[in-house]
């Protein structure tokens, strides 16, 4: 246990391929002298991902933010893009990068998922909204069917930012086709990784052509008439090679996550001071990439203190996501009470490749002791 004090415990997944795997990929590159521009490793990654996810088309990209930018550029015609006022900022950044307005809806209470009433309310009252960009956060999923219904009812294009939800399933099927396009991240802190990276998935062949066209000047396919802005979203052969390695042991990684998550559930003693967010449900099979505590209103003012306390013990817990989202639009924050509350009350604990059962025992004890010491 003493060892833990000197060991840094990060929040990210960090299932990074081993040095030997890295060497393997580098040897492959030097042998083939193919480095980037949609090379053979990328093609094989896209093929494997498409069969893993059960989707027709997969495009590997530089990172998920660029994936979102490309997907929005291909799908959003004009007007505003609706998104919950709670996500990693990349979701909103991507909307701004294509030059569209960000328009917010609220989340549910104690869940990062979009609140259907708030979403519908916005769709009814703001007819500038043409696209909905929904993040599936914390390895859980939004209410897929209801949202599909609402998007159709109000003729809005639906895109999912599933950066935090790779390999989650809805009613037994891996997510990837619930919006017109869906975007995943392969950042080092995610379940599978190419260090930086990501992919876009779709079942629509003409959209695939358009996405390919915007992704890059090289390897454009088809004949896209609209004078699109072309970006740059190439994934190198090194990234693709590493991601293939990472994908090959995904089962083990998810199993590790599940074990760690369950151990936290067993050891943490919330005693009404917080909830451990449960990403799975009867319909949703999670990949458990996040352990999130949602502090009760009565104790949420101690989150800062808890974070510092954990950090002082080398536990790099994070308030995921405590940002001032009014940077992206000036709607009154008070209109989004659930999102605001969530921003103030959530804290993520370490889970992933580097976290052992001993670490969980260590972290849980510190968290339990912290709450026990509070005078409430």
């Amino acid at each position, binding site marked *: 246990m003493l060892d833990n004090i000197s060991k840094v415990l990060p929040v990210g997944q*960090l299932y*990074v391929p081993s*040095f030997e795997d*890295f*060497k393997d990929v*580098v*040897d492959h590159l*030097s042998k083939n*002298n193919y*480095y*980037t*521009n949609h090379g053979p490793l990328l093609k094989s990654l896209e093929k494997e991902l498409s069969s893993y996810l059960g989707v027709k088309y997969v495009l590997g990209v*530089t*990172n*998920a*933010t*660029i994936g979102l*930018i490309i997907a929005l550029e291909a799908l959003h015609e004009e007007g505003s893009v609706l998104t919950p006022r709670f996500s*990693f*900022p*990349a979701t*909103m*950044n*991507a909307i*701004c*990068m294509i*030059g569209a307005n*960000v328009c917010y809806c609220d989340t549910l209470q104690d869940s990062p998922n979009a609140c259907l009433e708030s979403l519908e309310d916005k769709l009814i009252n703001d007819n500038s909204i043409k696209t909905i960009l929904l993040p599936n956060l914390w390895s859980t999923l939004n209410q897929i069917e209801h949202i599909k219904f609402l998007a159709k009812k109000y003729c809005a294009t639906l895109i999912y930012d599933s950066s935090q939800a790779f390999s989650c399933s809805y009613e037994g099927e891996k997510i990837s086709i619930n919006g017109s396009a869906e975007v995943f991240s392969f*950042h*080092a802190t995610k379940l599978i*990784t190419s*260090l*930086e990276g990501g992919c876009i998935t779709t079942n629509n062949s003409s959209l695939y052509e358009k996405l390919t066209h915007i992704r890059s*000047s090289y390897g454009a396919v088809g004949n896209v008439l609209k*004078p699109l*802005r*072309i*970006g*740059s979203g*190439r*994934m*190198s*052969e*090194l*990234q693709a090679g*590493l991601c293939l390695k990472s994908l090959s042991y995904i089962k083990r990684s998810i199993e590790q996550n599940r074990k760690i998550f369950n151990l936290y559930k067993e050891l943490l003693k919330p005693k009404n001071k917080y909830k451990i967010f449960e990403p799975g449900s009867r319909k949703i099979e999670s990949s458990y990439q996040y352990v999130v505590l949602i502090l009760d209103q009565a104790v949420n003012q101690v989150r800062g203190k808890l974070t510092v306390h954990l950090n002082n013990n080398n536990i790099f817990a994070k308030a995921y996501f405590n*940002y*001032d*989202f009014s*940077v*992206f639009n000036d709607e009154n924050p008070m209109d989004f009470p659930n999102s605001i509350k969530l921003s103030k009350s959530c804290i993520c604990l370490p889970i992933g490749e*580097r976290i052992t059962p001993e670490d969980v025992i260590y972290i849980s004890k510190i968290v339990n002791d912290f709450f026990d010491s509070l005078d409430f």
Partner: protein
Amino acid sequence: MVDISNSYLIEKNKYIGSETLSTSSLYSPDSTTVLNYIKTSYYHKQFTNRGPLVEELEEKLLNFHKARYCITFCSGFWALVAAIKNVALKDRKYVLMPSLTYRRLDDAVLWAGFTPLYCDIDPINLGLDINSIDQKYLTNISLILAVHPMVDCLNAYSISKFALSVSIPVVFDSVESVNEKLPEGKVGNFGNCEIFSLHASKLINGLEGGYITTNDYNLYNELKEFQNFSLNSKGELTQKYSMNAKLNEGHAAFALASFDELDLLLRHNYSIYNEYLCLEKLVCDKFRIRRYNNNMSPSYMIIVAELDKKYIDCRDKLIMTLNSINILSRIYYFPPLHKKRESMIGTKDLKLTITDLYSKKLFLLPSGWPIQKDQIYPIMNLINKIIDDIYLKKC
């Protein structure tokens, strides 16, 4: 036609080799060096988000360019967008730029929210000619985007001086002039900032990547925030227009290894360029090789051929024929941007005489790390023959 093509292919395979030849640098750094570098990232267990190799690379690059600050990017393209967005005057419309240039330059300008405005090029160096600027647009120009051409380079000093005199900022796209030393200083030190690419086809092979050099501390910080979701050092969001444009440690490892071995590549490039010059006599009635300025320490990376007037009409057919036998020669920047997307550009009444002239007569000969010196002679012979055949309408 089929038969002739086939005979070219046979000749190519027999005398040049069966491999595909290209105009990309494709430097292959020593694998052991790459692996030695990446060990540092494994040791620190950090693979992106400004890891140890990214910092080391930035340090080496800023020393190389003798600039004050350097920041790496996931690609030259997004570095370009970042530079335009953060340097251009916000209340103006146009970005002034050349037309015969990198074919995604107009896209970068559009992503940054501005409109391209083209000016002509200087026939001597093929770069943007500030004397061709239409004065009536000056007050609506937000930025001068000056791109160093493939061979030779811009007079960065006089462009910077002009920009200063009209109070318009200037960004240099120095992707093709990484190694150059101008009389007034090294490339990397001019204008508000300079952007570079670490793509595999460029001088320093990081597989994918780019970087910006600047002497402006505020701009450096803005760029750093831009590439990291606008988060500042306190983890607060600072502006809505930003993204993820970070370079990962794997690409940094490749870039570092390639950078360490740069002298090897420069020597190789020079020997290839020199060989082309020696063999120019084989084709001297048809084309000449554009000269590098040896006093400016060029990288000799790209070999640009300029067709004689008589053979200009053969160019496109020549490129098609070469491509069909796995010699991936390219037209020098095609198409000129003002011909590409006329609905989206700033002016409809453009007279880019020099641009139009040079857009018809230039092409790139095979070059780069994979090319061997003894392949140049048969390449020149074959091209000579193909041009003759095209000219005489045999194929």
